[in-house]
């Protein structure tokens, strides 16, 4: 049962990372234009260097 001392915090922390990622994406308006983002990935314009 001693393993629980590590496992429970670990599982909570892993879930927490997922939650933090979700909160970040929501705050940064990543769901504003899902259709456009899906299409933009096909655009080769900034393939060689990132958009300034």
């Amino acid at each position, binding site marked *: 049962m001693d393993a629980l001392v590590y496992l429970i915090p670990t599982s*909570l922390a892993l879930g927490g990372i997922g939650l933090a990622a979700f*909160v970040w994406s929501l705050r940064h308006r990543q*769901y*504003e234009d899902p259709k456009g983002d899906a*299409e*933009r*990935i*096909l655009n080769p314009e900034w393939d060689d260097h990132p958009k300034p």
Partner: protein
Amino acid sequence: MSATFEQDEMRMQASACPACVAAPSAERLAAAAAPKDARLMLSLPTAHCAVCITDVERELARHPQVRSARVNLTLKRVSVDAEPGVEAADLVARLARIGYEAHELDPDVLSATDADKRGRDILMRIGISGFAMMNIMLLSVAVWSGAEAATRDLFHWISAAIALPTVVFAGQPFFASAWASLKGGRLGMDVPISLAIILASSISVYETAHSGHHAYFDAAVMLTFFLLIGRYLDYRTRAVARSAAEELAALEVPRAQLLRDGAEVTVPVGELVPGDLIRIRPGARVPADGEVIEGSSELDRALLTGESLPVWAGPGSVLSTGEVNLTGPLTLRVTAAGRASSLHRMADLVAAAESAKNRYTSLAERMAAFYSPFVHLTAFASFLGWLQISGGDVRLAVNIAAAVLIITCPCALGLAVPAVVTSASGKLFRKGMLVKDGTALERLAEVDTVLFDKTGTLTMGAPEPQNLANLAPADLAIAAALAEASAHPLALALAVAARAMGVQPAKMSDLREVPGYGIEGLWQGQRVRLGRADWVGAVPGEMTATHLQIGALAPVSIAFADRLRPGAEAAVAGFLASGKAVHLVSGDTSGAVSELAQRLGIAHWHAGCLPAEKAALVADLAAKGAMVLMVGDGLNDTAALAAAHVSISPASALDAARTASDIVLLGSDLAPVADAVRVAVQARRRIKQNFAISLIYNVVAVPIAILGFATPLAAALAMSLSSVTVSLNSLRLK
């Protein structure tokens, strides 16, 4: 569904009322007048792929004063950040050159960011309660599979540490609306929901502190999670419809040409005051009531009165807001603008009718009214019963009452309506119909009488020449040459038809348009005229017609009839086949109305109706117990649209009419209307089935809970099973 939503909806309707759309608020116009950095919004109805995005953004960035442009493909819009002085018309022209259709949108009408905040708020609560639910469920599974004593207590304490903050944060929408409905003296569905969440959490804390066996943290969080999903679906349906409706409204940016010291200035319509002189160009909509002091022209009053014939206007004629100037420029002295204008008075009529319609109680509300007291009474009765049986064991009695409350809690009921409405609205959207109101589908399912407007609804509002084949080829060539020179709708239609027949226009000199009368020219030394009957010396007939006169010969008339909207026959036939009474109401002359009624097989027709008479007819039918569906597009239909049980208008309708109606037809085809009723009937059946499914779960689970055999595991199973079944049943909609 809940009090907050009702309030939001009322707020939404208040801000989207026809009046505000027809005559925008003062601060909006003040903002529009001030010079500022141009933040332009263009609608891109044809954009659909990666290439479109790149093309549009690159083309706009090429404009020297544009700082940045970003396409939103989901909303089919591009927002442009530019230096002051950049006109939307420039950008639209640029995009047209590279083959993209674009329209200017009024960014002030689009409150996308505001609406979006609410959506993200609910999503955040869903995300957090989802995270909490999964973690607590892991711990709960351990307890259910037999964790004992200290381990169980530890797991319960960890669950509590996760669940309590989650419930406090994520449950807020329910607590707020439950509180609002209690303050209003009603017992909404959110009262038992909140009570169950709070009671489950507090009892579990108490049990955990006393090393109890059962804790309901998972149930409390799961309840929040599932119900938030229902809430979000509900919100999405509204938000999608609202943003599309806002976009339609934003398409008309209200401006007027004011004559100030002889010069023309463009001003927002809201700045006009009585006494101002305004110029109305051909093709423009009259922005305020007034009297013509200069110029003569013809007016299209179809949107206001339903008349399909243009009306002559010259000095002394009185014009109403919303009419369209056709042939010549007019100078108008404003007599009433903004709130006092005839358009606004019409909007008041609509507001009155609309407040009557808001009294409709949806299936969900009726269900809640019956279900909430039942839930509370059952829980309270089991509390009293167990108190009696156990001889005063409060802890046991409260535990059982909480279990009853959790199990009866309308988890599936919260999903039953939103899931079906989302699925049905999506279906209708793909058929080209936009459902604006949450209860519109339920009301549409009850319809037994259908009222159609004529001009612009059953017909396209665009005339077509009827008897060109009877004309001599030489006459036709002359008529075509004359028609080419004018922007009058009849002339335009004639020119298009002649071109389609391959007619070569005759050679003509000295072409000149006499505004309000017609066109004349010289053909082989003879004066030829095309225009009004009295101008060329013909006898005006019953039908819409224009007349051709060559030299001193007797005039020839060319009759016009309005073209049927595609799908009109199918829609009417569909309604008649399903046994609904179909009426045709129009402000047009009885000749034109009866002809169309005969063509479509409509038995009941009413011609020459004023706007108030149309609304009265609707009220009359409603008083006889009929559930009326009104389909109309004009300003003259607005009151009737608002008064009807449910209403549909085409996207080409005036914005006031679109705002007043529950469903907007996005394409030009009318055929989906009959289909919409079928989908609505089916959706109502699904909603009722969903209610039945969740009731069956209750019938099985409630006795178990009352008898005290319910465990947290049973509660979790009942809750998730019923929610999933209900969601799947909603997706079955064909």
